[in-house]
């Protein structure tokens, strides 16, 4: 058997193409199956783990009255309840980036966000930042990039729609310290609320201490044993369902107990209030009395003070009178004395004046005396110097004579010198200049002349000195002669001058004596006058001080009077405020009494609360994820079948071909004595090895590649961790056995059918499949007109039916996959274009704060440049029910005027585009809502009015719609049926905004107007959905890849078989002189026709698959487009053809390699 095994090994290595074809198709089929099948389990496992990690509650209890500690106690006593976490939440509105958003605020677990005990449920995961540590800190949802981000470190202020949140929160301003994800919110939308526009935008967590509610808002429950199974399993539902039922059992009694509790609490509160009221009343009365007493005491004090003041005033008046009489006496006396004193003073002053005059005279006389004395002395001196004067005169005369004598000779000398100089000059002039010694003689003469001139100037200066000396002696002589004459005059007068001087001396001494006695007398008189004046001023001083004292007393009294007045005013103010306070206090007491009475009345009316027991299926994120996972399951159950089918066909044709090729070998084995069993085993082994290797490659690849791609696409709309991949044994086994089964089955079929022949005939080459007439030939008109080559192609195509089917199915599968992919994209992209561009004629929505459109806003809305139209409406989340109780969540839309609405919303039928009328009494429901509720025109929908009473409307029309569910109702009808006035809360606007800048400007202007809180442009909403659609691109890529692989394998296989099987034929036509091009065309024409046929079938298949997938994948609030765009058909077909061209190009090499010499060989 060793040789046999070697032969098997060689047959593999010698036919790699064939072997890999089987291997690849098995890998693709098994991989695609296993990968797609395990996607949903992987998704569920990932989310299950995520929920377990966050310790998501199994059950959640809500009550209209909250929960008390005794509720908590009762619930935790229920069998199967592992832990209870009582906690708080509240909804608030905050402003982020100038937009109002609604936010749900939860309390973190009491033991901290990171506590892993069972009691700490619904723990969020910190994504960035840190956990809150202090009051006033919060962590918010990270938010998908579509939402407005709240920056870490920013501060947000929470408001309820009515104002503050002081009833529920200790503080309303929170600092964002981190971002979190929560398994409680896996889906993109957070949920609904009763505030804002009804849609929650975000969630946040704060410290539980920051809540001040007395009753717990909700209870989270963990069920024993629930965590040991997958949350998506039936077992989980059983375990949790049992506990839920038990909770249902205690619910009634707890509701009543809670009512009693609340009542008791309220009664307690009321009685406390009553007591407080009574106390307050007593207290108030006492306080009032006290105040009154104080007022009376004050009045008495004031009266006493007034009396004291009056006494003082009287005393002052007496003093004043006394002072005045004293003043009068003083004035009288002063009038008498002062003239006397003045006269005396006058006398003194005159005396003093006379004395002064006399002193002056005396001084003049003394001065004259002194002058006389001086004259006398100088006269005496002159007289004594007479002899000396005579001598001086003589000497001066002598000097004059001496000098005159010297004058003459000097004059002669000068004249001599002068003439000598003249002579010398003449000599010089007469000298002959031509004489030979001229120069010498001239110099000699010049020298002599210079000496003469020097002597001349010396003589002249000597003469000058003598003349000067004569002049000086003459003036001295004259002076001396004057003096001598004066002395001779004075000499006789000297004695009389001496006598006169002595008598003048005597007179001066007498005058000095008389002045001294006069001064003495005047001083005595002055003393007398001064003492009289002193007496008077002393009397005056006394009087003045008395006056000052009186003035001071008067000021003090005035102050006292003023204080008294003030006290009186204060007293009267006190009286007034006492009256006011008394009135106020009485009013307050009255109100308090009223409140008390009201409270008592309310308490009597109080009804039992309602409990809501919610399991995870009621959690929005959980529910939508669960249905998405289910959808994934149903899709994955369909697509792979196609691959298995193709795999079986590929294996069948390939193995048939192999068996045919090896029939002589088989015959030989037979003849050598190998059993049929052994021979079959060879081919089964061949196919089996290809299959096993294919599975070994394909399944792990599929299982580890496809789920993450799909999950990551989903993660654009779910917040959850990356996929937790697990090797799924179940689907591995199914994939493995299914692919192996198909390939082995096909092989067995091929081999066994061959082995029916006898060994002898097997040894003969198998007659080539005989040519046959095909059906088309019977239609002569067509057949005759066909070109020869087309006839050949047509006949060849139908000659090998197995290949025909394989190719058509394979290509159809590929095209179908492509079309499904593109179709899905079309259907979903359609939503946006149809909804926002076709069905809605408005492009913006503005939220109204109080239902009124301010004048400012109207300025924008009624400017035709800016706005083409606007309409007021009410839009809010409601439950729409049908009569059999089925309920869906949708929007109620009530326009202000019914006739206006069709200008903003295009009501029409989806298929025929026929208009659906809307006017008075119209009730129009959107298509998907209608189909979900099973309502047609004329059917009834039920909604609750504001009092919670159910009212019904008859549907008058059903309109095309893709996003969300809407119930459009005429306002008049709405009001008359519900009894509620429509609460208009938004504007639909047709704004003229060509670009995003204009859009921004428009919304800014509108937001700045009063009464408008949010402006949303549909274009922005579109972007959110476009993001979702991007996720589909991945899925389409997978589909294109798989389709390409499928097409490639099928076409490759087909062409490969075609070429090897018909090698001889091809060689022959080559010998006949067919060009390479024609040889290729000979084969490819068949391939192309098959591809085109397959393509056509694929497009049909695609339509079916698309319809199935779309209805399966669709989420509740959305209706996907049902149409596939024409270009998608085109793309799918073109891509398929492209794959076929690629295969053709690939196979061309093989065609070229065909050796013509083959044609000469015998058939073997």
């Amino acid at each position, binding site marked *: 058997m060793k040789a046999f095994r070697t032969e098997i090994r060689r047959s593999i290595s010698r036919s790699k193409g064939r072997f890999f074809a089987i291997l690849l198709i098995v890998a693709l089929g098994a991989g695609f199956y296993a990968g797609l099948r395990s996607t949903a389990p992987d998704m569920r496992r990932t989310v299950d783990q995520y929920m377990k990690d966050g310790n998501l509650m199994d059950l959640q209890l809500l009550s209209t009255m909250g929960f008390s500690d005794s509720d908590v106690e009762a619930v935790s006593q229920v069998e199967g309840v592992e832990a209870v976490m009582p906690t708080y939440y509240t909804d608030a509105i905050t402003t982020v980036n100038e937009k109002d958003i609604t936010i749900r605020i939860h309390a973190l677990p009491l033991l901290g966000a990171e506590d892993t005990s069972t009691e700490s449920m619904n723990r969020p995961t910190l994504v960035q930042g840190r956990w809150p540590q202090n009051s006033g800190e919060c962590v918010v949802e990270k938010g998908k990039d579509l939402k407005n981000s709240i920056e870490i470190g920013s501060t947000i202020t929470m408001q309820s729609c009515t104002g503050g949140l002081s009833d529920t929160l200790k503080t309303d301003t929170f600092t964002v310290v981190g971002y979190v994800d929560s398994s409680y919110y896996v889906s993109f939308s957070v949920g609904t609320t009763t505030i804002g526009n009804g849609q929650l935008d975000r969630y946040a967590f704060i410290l539980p201490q920051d809540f001040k509610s007395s009753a717990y808002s909700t209870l989270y429950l963990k069920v024993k044993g629930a965590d040991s199974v997958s949350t998506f399993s039936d077992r989980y539902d059983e375990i949790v369902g049992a506990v839920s039922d038990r909770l249902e059992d205690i619910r009634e009694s707890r509701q009543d107990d809670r009512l009693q509790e609340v009542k008791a609490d309220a009664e307690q509160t009321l009685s406390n209030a009553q007591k407080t009221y009574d106390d307050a009343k007593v207290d108030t009365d006492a306080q009032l009395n006290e105040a009154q007493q104080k007022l009376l005491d004050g009045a008495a004090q004031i009266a006493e003070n007034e009396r004291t003041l009056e006494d003082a005033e009287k005393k002052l008046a007496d003093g004043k009178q006394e002072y005045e009489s004293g003043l009068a006496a003083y004035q009288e006396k002063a009038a008498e004395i002062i003239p006397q004193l003045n006269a005396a003073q006058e006398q003194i002053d005159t005396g003093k004046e006379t004395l002064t005059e006399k002193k002056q005279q005396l001084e003049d006389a003394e001065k004259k005396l002194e002058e006389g004395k001086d004259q006398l002395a100088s006269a005496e001196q002159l007289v004594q110097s007479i002899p000396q004067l005579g001598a001086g005169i003589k000497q001066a005369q002598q000097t004059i004579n001496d000098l005159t004598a010297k004058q003459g000779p000097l004059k002669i000398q000068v004249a001599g010198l002068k003439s000598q100089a003249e002579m010398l000059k003449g000599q010089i002039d007469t000298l002959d200049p031509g004489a030979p010694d001229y120069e010498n003689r001239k110099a000699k003469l010049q020298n002599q002349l210079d000496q003469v001139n020097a002597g001349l100037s010396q003589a002249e200066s000597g003469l000058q000195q003598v003349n000067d000396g004569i002049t000086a002696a003459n003036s001295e002589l004259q002076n001396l002669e004057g003096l001598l004459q004066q002395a001779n005059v004075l000499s006789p007068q000297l004695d009389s001058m001496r006598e006169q001087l002595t008598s003048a001396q005597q007179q001066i001494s007498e005058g000095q004596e008389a002045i001294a006695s006069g001064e003495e007398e005047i001083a005595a008189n002055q003393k007398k006058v001064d003492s009289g004046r002193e007496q008077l001023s002393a009397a005056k001083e006394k009087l003045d001080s008395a006056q000052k004292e009186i003035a001071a007393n008067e000021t003090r009294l005035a102050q006292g009077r003023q204080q008294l007045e003030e006290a009186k005013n204060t007293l009267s103010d006190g009286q007034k405020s006492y009256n006011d306070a008394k009135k106020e206090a009485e009013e307050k007491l009255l109100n308090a009494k009223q409140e008390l009475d009201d409270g008592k009345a309310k308490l009597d009316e109080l009804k039992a609360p309602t409990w809501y027991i919610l399991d995870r299926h009621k959690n929005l994120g959980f529910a939508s994820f669960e249905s998405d996972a289910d959808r994934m399951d149903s899709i994955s159950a369909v697509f792979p079948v196609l691959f298995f089918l193709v795999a079986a066909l590929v294996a069948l044709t390939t193995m048939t071909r192999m068996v045919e090729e090896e029939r002589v070998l088989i015959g030989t084995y037979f003849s050598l004595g190998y059993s049929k069993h052994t021979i079959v085993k060879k081919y089964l082994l061949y196919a089996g090895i290809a299959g096993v290797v294919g599975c070994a490659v394909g399944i792990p690849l599929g299982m580890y590649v496809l789920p993450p791609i799909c999950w990551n696409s989903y993660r654009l709309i779910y917040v959850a961790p990356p996929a937790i991949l697990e090797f799924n044994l179940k689907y591995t086994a199914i994939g493995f056995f299914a692919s192996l089964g198909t390939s082995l089955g096909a092989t067995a079929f091929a081999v066994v059918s061959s082995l029916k022949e006898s060994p002898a005939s097997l040894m003969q080459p198998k*007659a*080539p*499949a*005989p*040519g*046959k007439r095909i059906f088309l030939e019977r239609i002569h008109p067509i057949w005759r007109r066909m070109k*020869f*080559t087309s*006839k*050949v192609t047509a*006949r*060849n195509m139908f*000659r090998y039916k197995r290949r025909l089917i394989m190719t058509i199915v394979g290509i159809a599968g590929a095209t179908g996959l492509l079309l499904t992919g593109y179709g899905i994209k079309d259907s979903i992209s359609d939503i946006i274009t149809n909804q926002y561009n076709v069905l809605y004629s408005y492009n913006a929505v503005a939220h109204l704060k109080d239902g009124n459109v301010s004048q400012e806003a109207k300025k924008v809305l009624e400017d035709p440049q800016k706005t083409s139209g606007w309409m007021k409406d009410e839009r809010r989340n409601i439950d729409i029910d049908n009569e059999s109780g089925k309920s869906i969540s949708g929007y109620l839309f009530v326009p202000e005027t019914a006739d206006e609405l069709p200008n903003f919303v295009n009501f029409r039928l989806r298929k025929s585009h026929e208009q659906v009328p809307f006017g008075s009494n119209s009730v129009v429901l959107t298509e998907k809502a209608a189909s979900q509720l099973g309502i047609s025109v004329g059917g009834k929908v039920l909604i609750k009015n504001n009092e919670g009473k159910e009212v019904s409307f008859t549907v008058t029309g059903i309109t095309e719609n893709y996003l969300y569910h809407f119930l459009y109702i005429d306002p008049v009808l709405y009001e008359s049926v519900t009894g509620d006035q429509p609460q208009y809360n938004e504007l639909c606007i047709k704004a003229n905004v060509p670009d995003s800048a204009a859009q921004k400007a428009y919304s800014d202007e509108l937001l700045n107007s009063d009464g408008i809180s949010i402006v949303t442009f549909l274009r922005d909403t579109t972007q959110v959905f476009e993001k979702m659609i991007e996720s589909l691109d991945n899925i389409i890529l997978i589909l294109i890849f798989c389709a390409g692989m499928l097409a490639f394998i099928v076409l490759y296989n087909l062409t490969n078989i075609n070429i090897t099987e018909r090698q*001889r*034929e091809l*060689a*022959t*036509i*080559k*010998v*006949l*002189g*067919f*060009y*390479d091009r*024609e040889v290729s065309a000979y084969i490819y024409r068949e391939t192309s026709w098959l591809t085109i046929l397959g393509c056509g079938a694929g497009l049909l298949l695609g339509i079916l698959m698309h319809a199935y997938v779309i209805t399966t994948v669709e989420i509740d609030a959305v209706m996907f487009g049902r149409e596939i765009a024409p270009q998608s058909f085109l793309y799918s077909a073109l891509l398929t053809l492209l794959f076929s061209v690629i295969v053709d190009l690939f196979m061309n090499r093989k065609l070229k390699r065909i050796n*013509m*010499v083959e*044609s*000469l*060989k*015998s*058939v073997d």
Partner: protein
Amino acid sequence: MAFVEFHDVTKFYQMGEVSIHAADGVNFSIEQGEFVIIVGPSGAGKTTVLNMLGGMDSCTSGEILLDGKKISSYNQKQLTQYRRYDVGFVFQFYNLVQNLTALENVELASQICKDPLDAMEVLREVGLEERADNFPAQLSGGEQQRVAIARALAKNPKLLLCDEPTGALDYRTGKAVLQLLQDTCRNTGRTVIVITHNQAFTALADRVIHIHSGKVQKMELNQNPMSAERIEW
């Protein structure tokens, strides 16, 4: 100048390290309108010569001339054209396309020629008028070979090359086919070259070329060729 000329034609095949000399300096010439038999034992190189003459293979060196054209220097495209317009082939195993009727098989060749003969006419000439609409599987070996000859003739080729045309046929049928070829040569003046290992056929030929070990051993002209009906083997 002769119609077909081989001058020192060699053909080497490199099989790994061994070089096989399939043709090792072949020289011969053939005149137009001759019925030529190339004869030699298996592996002598007859088929190589035929392949080269038929434009299915190229020579390693030397030159091949047909009607003055140097085929040995043709490129692939020219060789294809040469096969298409100038040569008709008859194979040992007929090589009919199974999926085409007898007539269509003839048409397969005639459709690509410039100046083809009428397919039906040629079929009539080979005596298969009534079997025109039959598929090869419905024909006997001799009939199939006659269809093959008709297919070759329909192209109106300058040269008809036959590789062991009787190899798969019984004695009688083989004789009939040989007769058909001989008649074709005589009646249409077409040059027919038949390759065989059967020495007995040499009597039919105008010219006999003996090939041995890749060389022309000898070439002889037959002044009085016999009719195919009269030869025995």
